[in-house]
């Protein structure tokens, strides 16, 4: 069943469809909220508020974007509301990322490095990178979620990727320094 079909059923208050929707999207939405807010409790709040909004607002989905894009927009707005009320208190970078079962030190090191590199990005750039690489969203959908032009999304990605490369492979970056111009 497609997301559109599920939403139509949810609009008719079908709890089984809602449960299916929750199972399908809760994990990635929670990850999105957690990475935006860096606070598990706040991420849980955003997840539950966004899911409830889907139950109540499904009938209002107009189909002018992907259902997942619509869901992420809702979650993002909830997260912004929450941040306005209570500024986030960032967790240590590896919290919630590396499980205690993790034994592969090299992989852990890469995760930590990537986390640090992401954290060093300006929030608008980080969000684009995460929506593209973490949530596999096309640039057009990201532009809808962030409510900005498509070219802004691409440009943010351009700069973010350059900084990430510098953080992840400083030597490689030094070699290609100066070869690229701004978009």
């Amino acid at each position: 069943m497609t997301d559109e079909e599920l939403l139509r059923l949810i609009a008719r208050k079908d709890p089984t469809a809602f449960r299916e929707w929750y199972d399908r999207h809760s994990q990635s939405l929670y990850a999105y909220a957690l990475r935006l807010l860096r606070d598990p409790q706040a991420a849980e709040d955003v997840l539950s508020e966004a899911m409830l909004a889907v139950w109540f607002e499904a009938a209002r989905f107009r189909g002018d974007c992907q259902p997942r894009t619509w869901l992420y927009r809702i979650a993002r707005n909830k997260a912004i509301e929450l941040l306005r009320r209570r500024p986030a208190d960032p967790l240590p970078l590896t919290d919630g990322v590396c499980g205690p079962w993790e034994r592969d030190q090299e992989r852990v090191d890469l995760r930590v490095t990537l986390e640090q590199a992401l954290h060093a990005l300006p929030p608008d750039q980080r969000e684009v990178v995460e929506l593209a690489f973490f949530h596999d969203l096309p640039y057009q959908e990201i532009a809808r979620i962030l409510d900005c032009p498509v070219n802004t999304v691409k440009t943010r990605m351009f700069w973010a990727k350059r900084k990430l490369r510098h953080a992840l492979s400083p030597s490689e970056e030094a070699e290609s320094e100066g070869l690229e111009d701004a978009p």
Partner: protein
Amino acid sequence: MRAQGHRRYELLLPWYAGGLVGPEETEELRKHLRTCSSCACEYQRLLRLRDAFADLRSAMPPPPPAVLDRVWSRLLRHEREQAGRSGWIARAALASAAVLAAATVGIGLHSTPYKTLGRSVQEEGLVQIVFDPNATEGEIRSLLQEVGATIAAGPHTSGLYRIRVRWGTDPSAAVERLRRHPRVRFVEVER
């Protein structure tokens, strides 16, 4: 002109590396990568970056199960209030006897167009439950027998039942057991 084309493709590469561009752009980028060594290198770097992100994603914790419980609780509370406003609780209470009779002999469990979300008097040890839509009547019956519960009312049009655990049985313990069952989609003690 050529540089402009290059820049355009370069900006699309992060999405191309994830298979997130349309068929037309995919074809254009494929051609461009054959002739542009700088973009071909960048593409390889982006694939590695994507791998690193996939690894990071796999390590993200899932949302705690309690979130779903909270969502259901609020949703049911809301539906109950809505239903209360429309005054169907009394109708539901009257209908429950017929439903209970049907459920006891194992017929009509899924066909009764009846709402169970409202709470009537003298009802303790009540639990709200939604079974997997594919659960058979036999599975529901054996599940209820396992925890010593009987159907008090339902199903609601949404698939929700109200069940009553045997007197002296802790409803929370029954809920814990039911929650672990794969045929149970939602369960909570009615408050």
